[in-house]
């Protein structure tokens, strides 16, 4: 299950969406924004996205995860648009019969999401400057 949303991520709904009596374990990962990075303070964030491709690539991730692990349900939700520090930008929930699977699969999903999903973060620093974040690239 893949969702892109411009609203606050409803973590309760995300958890419920993967619960199932065949599952003994649920692992939920939430990525939130720290207010301080190094010595700079974040005022807010904007997430831009190439939506058709992001959904396609996230569906490929989910399919690959289901090939690799014995999971019951997967829900990946990414928030887009304007966020404040402390709000969740991404939620990944995995349910599985056994707990090791849910941990491994959840970690693999967030690691992979950060590699290949066309979503970009803009830091709006508290000092009024802005910066698109592009790992490995000097601005």
């Amino acid at each position, binding site marked *: 299950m893949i969702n892109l949303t411009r609203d606050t991520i409803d973590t309760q709904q995300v958890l419920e969406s993967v619960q199932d009596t065949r599952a003994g374990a649920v692992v939920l990962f939430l990525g939130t924004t720290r207010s301080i990075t190094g010595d700079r303070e974040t005022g807010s964030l904007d997430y831009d996205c*190439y939506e058709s491709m992001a959904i396609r*690539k996230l569906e490929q991730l989910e399919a690959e995860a289901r090939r690799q692990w014995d999971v019951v349900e997967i829900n990946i939700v990414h928030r887009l648009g304007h966020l404040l520090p402390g709000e969740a930008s991404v939620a990944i929930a995995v349910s599985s019969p056994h707990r090791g699977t849910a941990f491994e699969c959840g970690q693999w999903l*967030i690691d992979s999401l950060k590699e290949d999903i066309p979503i*970009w973060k803009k830091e709006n620093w508290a000092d009024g400057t802005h910066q698109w974040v*592009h790992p490995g*690239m000097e601005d």
Partner: protein
Amino acid sequence: MTLRIKLFAVAMQKAGTTDLEVECSLPANVGEIKQLVVDTCPPLSEILPHCRFAVDDEFASDDTVITEQASVAIIPPVSGGAC
């Protein structure tokens, strides 16, 4: 003809648009289009080596062929997720 290329994040910022229009003759491959992108919009030249191209919502190589119906985008290094 005119090929519209979707831009995001720093590419959009440097080009000042979400859709770059490049004059070209199609079909052409991604490598050929890259050169036309730099000619059309020089501010993209410094970031383009760090970017990937997407054709029809899939990452493309320099050999990937772009037809008239293709949807094309420049994909700067991604930064979704968190921490």
